C-alpha cells in the first residue's frame, strides 16, 4: 500500500490518508474484507505518530469504510456504507455546486464540465486494472 503524505500543504494528515484509502476502496484496489496494517505497523511504514493512525482508523470506521474487530485489527467493510441515493446526492451537492461555479467562472460550458467529470471517473476506474 503506497500512501503519499504532503507535509508542506498543511492539510491535516488524517484527511490526506483517509482520502487515499477511500480512493483505494472505490477503485477496487482494496477489496471488502481485506485487512489493514496494525496501528504500529502503519505508524512505522508511514512514519507518522501512532495517535494519528488511531484517529485515522476511527475516522474510517465512522465513515463506514472499515470495521474494527476487537483484537483482530482493521478490515475493509464488506458492505460499503451505502446510504440512500437521495442522501448520497445531498452529501455531494455542495461540492458539485462549487465545482460548477469554478468551471463556469473559467468559461467552461455545461458539456465541458461534464466531460471533465467523465474523464476523472475513467481515471479512477482505470486504477483498478
Amino acid at each position, binding site marked *: 500500500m503506497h500512501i503519499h503524505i504532503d507535509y*508542506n*500543504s498543511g492539510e491535516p*494528515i488524517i*484527511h490526506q490518508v483517509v482520502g487515499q484509502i477511500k480512493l483505494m476502496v472505490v477503485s477496487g484496489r482494496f477489496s471488502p474484507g481485506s485487512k489493514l496494517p496494525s496501528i504500529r505497523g502503519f*505508524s*512505522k511504514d508511514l512514519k507518522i*505518530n*501512532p*495517535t*494519528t493512525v488511531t484517529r485515522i482508523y476511527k475516522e474510517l470506521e465512522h465513515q463506514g469504510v472499515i470495521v474494527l474487530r476487537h483484537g483482530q485489527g482493521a478490515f475493509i467493510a464488506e458492505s460499503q456504507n451505502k446510504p440512500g441515493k437521495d442522501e448520497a446526492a445531498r452529501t455531494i451537492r455542495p461540492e458539485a455546486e462549487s465545482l460548477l461555479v469554478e468551471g463556469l467562472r473559467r468559461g467552461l460550458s455545461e458539456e465541458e464540465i461534464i466531460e471533465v467529470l467523465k474523464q476523472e471517473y475513467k481515471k479512477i476506474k482505470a486504477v483498478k486494472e
Partner: protein
Amino acid sequence: MSEPVIKTEGLSRAFGEKAAVDSLSFELNAGSILGFLGVNGAGKTTTMRMLMGHLHPTGGMVTVAGGNPWDWTDLQRSKVAYVSENMNLPGWMRPKDAISASKSFYSEWNSSLAESLLDKFELQNAGRYKTMSKGQKRKMCILLALCQRAELLIMDEPAAGLDVTARRAFVEQILEVACNDNTSVLLSSHLLSDLERTIDQVALIDNGKLIMQNHLEDLKASVRKVHIFKKIAKSELAEFFSLVSFETSGDGETIAVVFDYDEEKFGRFGRQHNCLEMAKVYHMNLEDMFVEITKNVN
C-alpha cells in the same frame, strides 16, 4: 485514562524581576509526543529544567513521572531521560565506553537498540567524545537517552546540528519508542518540519506563558488562511471567526488567519458579505502557523 506523565499548574520561575516562566499549566499523557514550541527566550529551557528538578520553581506545582522532581526516588528518576541543549560527556569516552557506563546505571537498558543506533547514527568509529563533531556529540547523547527505555523523554533541541539523514533516523526512532514502549516525549525544536512528522500535540509558549495546547491534527483542521479579493472590515470577519491575524491591502484585498475555520460558517459569512466567489481558503503547515501566531500574540 491513566494519570498524565507531566502535569504542571501555575508553574512559574522568576529570575530577579523577570518572569521567565509565568503561570504555566499543561499536561502530557502517556504515549503522546508533545512539541514544545516558542521563539528564543520564550521559557522552554527553563520549563524543562524545572520538569527535571534542575531548577526550583518560584511558584506553582509540577508533577513528573508520578512525583515532584525534587522528591523523586531513584526509581522515578530512572524513568525519565533528558537531553539538554548543552549536555556533555567526559572527553575521554569512546561510544562504547559511554554505553557501558550508562548500561550499569539503568536496569532497563536496551542493548540491541544501542547497537542498532550506533550503526544508524554512524558512530561506530567516532573516536573519543572530545574529538567528535558537534553533530556526533549530539547523536551520542540522544542514543544514551533513547536506550534507557525511559517512560518519559525530555529533549531540548535534540536535532540541532544534525544533518538531514540523522534527523530522519532520529524522528523514526522517536516514533518507534513511542509506539513500542508507550514512551511519552516532550521535545522542543526549531526544526518545525521534523516536528510536524513526529508530534501529536503542540504546546506554544511565549514570554513564559502558554498560548495554546492542542492536537496538531485539530489545529491543522481549524487554522486557515483566508484570502478575500474584497475589502472586509475586521469587525465583520471577527463576528464569525476568532482571528489570529488580519490585514487589508491598499487595492482592496483582505488576508486573515482564523483559529476556528468551518466550511458551513464560512459559507454563511460569504453569502452575507457577497464574497463567496471572491475567496480562497488555504491550509497552513506548522511553520506558517507558528510564525503567524507568535507574531500576533503581543
